[in-house]
């Protein structure tokens, strides 16, 4: 299908919106009526047609506007994109992975023509048509990682693998859930995860690291993570907390349905061939509560998950103060009926709200 790109903003007037198509394919993250951290990894080898899991790098209606927002963030704060000197090869690996994937998965939007190391890249939605020499940095306007991630939705952490450990040695991070690349750069897997509650005690990070160290070329993996965001903001960074933190206090019973967003990250993991580094794309999807409530199953389930979430998690995810107001709103959509297993909305089979 051809994608109709939205003209929208993720700041100031927040004109961001989801079409019916986008709501239906929203990666609702709860497969049951409760939630706890787990080593929830699975293979990233496609998924149902039209779902966000189908392609290696999902492109949707927000693409063009998200890239415009990224350019604005970078103009204000260039440190959102960093790459330590030994990570340049990994940057080329990433550029190749994305260009090959997108041109194969979306041939009507992206083209890659290769003649030895002479490459031509055509990105139709962004109006780009560049010719360059693969592995020669002087032929691109930015470093390879920055060049390609200015054209790809989602944040990117590029991890060097040494001594059975992953190191955050490069990244493009402008749509993050309250963490900072500038702070985490050079840290290892346990160091950057230090602020996360409960998961260390449960041994989750030890097992997750073993899994990641073993991710092989040609066998990518994925998992979901989620949090809450007031207003459809992509850039919820510590650097800009003074701007968005205060917006959490603007929630009222009247505006919560449109202002409060469930923020879901589709996280994927790919081994990079030339550098043996690992890339961790973190793709952010936003959906307002009122749009989520159009799916009866999601309405029932979201209420139960938010209600029963441990205090530590609600605090870490930054919505403990607003939880009572959220529950007042969400409880209207929970009639106590059972929900079907799995993440899908099951519109045809789940009964409408009985209230």
């Amino acid at each position, binding site marked *: 299908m051809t994608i109709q790109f939205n003209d929208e903003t993720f700041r100031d007037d927040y004109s961001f919106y989801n079409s019916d198509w986008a709501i239906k394919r929203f*990666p609702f*993250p709860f*497969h049951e009526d409760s939630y706890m951290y787990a080593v*929830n990894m*699975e*293979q990233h*080898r*496609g*998924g*149902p047609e039209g*779902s966000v*899991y189908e392609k290696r790098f999902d492109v949707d209606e927000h693409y063009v506007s998200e890239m415009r927002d990224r350019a604005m963030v970078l103009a204000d704060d260039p440190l959102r994109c960093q790459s*330590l*000197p*030994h*990570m340049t*090869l990994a940057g080329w*690996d990433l550029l*190749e992975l994305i260009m090959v994937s997108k041109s194969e998965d979306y041939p009507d939007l992206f083209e890659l023509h290769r003649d030895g190391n002479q490459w031509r890249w055509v990105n139709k939605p962004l109006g780009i048509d560049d010719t360059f020499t693969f592995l020669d940095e002087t032929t691109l306007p930015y470093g390879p990682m920055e060049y390609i991630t200015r054209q790809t939705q989602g944040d990117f952490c590029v991890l*060097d*693998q*040494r*001594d059975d450990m992953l190191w955050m040695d490069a990244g493009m991070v402008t749509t993050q859930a309250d963490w900072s690349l500038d702070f985490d750069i050079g840290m290892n897997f346990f160091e950057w995860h230090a602020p996360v509650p409960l998961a260390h005690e449960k041994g989750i990070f030890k097992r997750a690291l*073993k899994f990641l*160290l*073993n991710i*092989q*070329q*040609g*066998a990518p993996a*994925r*998992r*979901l993570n989620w949090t809450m965001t007031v207003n459809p903001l992509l850039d919820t960074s510590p650097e800009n907390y003074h701007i968005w933190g205060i917006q959490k206090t603007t929630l009222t019973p009247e505006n919560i349905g449109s202002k409060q967003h469930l923020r879901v990250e589709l996280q994927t993991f790919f081994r990079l*061939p*030339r*550098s*043996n580094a690992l890339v961790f794309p973190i793709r952010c999807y936003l959906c307002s509560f009122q749009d989520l409530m159009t799916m009866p199953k999601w309405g029932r389930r979201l209420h139960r998950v938010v209600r029963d979430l441990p205090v530590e998690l609600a605090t870490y995810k930054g919505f403990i103060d607003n939880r009572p107001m959220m529950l007042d709103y969400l409880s209207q959509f929970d009639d106590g009926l059972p929900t079907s*297993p*799995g*993440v899908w909305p099951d519109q045809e089979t789940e009964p409408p709200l009985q209230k």
Partner: protein
Amino acid sequence: MSAAPQKAKPGGQQIPVVVSAVVPLNDLVTRFEFQCRDGGAFPPFSGGAHTVVEMKDGDLTRLNPYSLMSDPADSSTYAISVRREDGGRGGSLFMHQRVKQGDEMMISYPVNLFSLDLRAKKHIFFAGGIGITPFMAMIAQLERSNGNWELHYACRTESLGTYVDVLSYKYPNKVHIYYDDQNQAIPLEDLLDGQPLGTNAYVCGPKGMIDWVHAAASAAGWPDAQVHSEEFLKPEPGREFEVRLCKSGKTITVGENESLLEAIERAGVEAPFLCRGGACGQCETDVVKADGEFVHRDHWLDDDQHASGEKIMPCVSRFLGTLELDR
């Protein structure tokens, strides 16, 4: 998550290949070159990576890891060099005696457990015998990026000096050869002394050599993280033992000449693996009950885990007695 659950194939993705050349190099070592069966390009790889070659030997499927030794920038061909082990379990003999140009085989995607530290200002390589193979690819990779490296390569005799000729010809100032039968030895202590800060050392060869380099580097004050080694263990023969596989409800006997992993696979039970050499951790299996003595041989579990008796790496480790596994 349960978006579209799929089971990982044990051993990871495979590539269908055709043997494009078989090149004997000396009395013991032969090079095998592969091309993609569909005529396409191989995935790029990083120096130090290996591939697991699947050999169909009658009813038996052998899976042996070999370092990729071709130039990582050449996506048309992968090459491995195999030393014939007359007393081994038969994988290398199969390659030498049965594999011919034009044969179709399956090999795994590249896996790297021995990669270059790309931060290093200088790389110093120590190779012993067939341990030269991963360095062939690393050298090609570093030459392309103007990396700073040198190689110290110990061989038994001149006639068994695999790739000595090409290496010495192409890089006369960087390659140093030592022949055992001429009583030449790598001057390890001197070499480790006085390297520029940020040098990384890599060793691949017999176990004795690996231990020697680690010990000498440590004595010379090198940080462990700057000394890298790769040793593929081979499953060793041992006494026959019996294993109960709880999940699949089967009882199997592990023969003298097969590994526990091979016996599990022979029983038709799927078990994860990657390197089949005790290094990657993929085959880690929970022990339910153990009546007897473990023979742990892997590099993956730590000493405490070995002592606990709760885990075993079936690709290389064995048991004396009877064992019950969560598989």
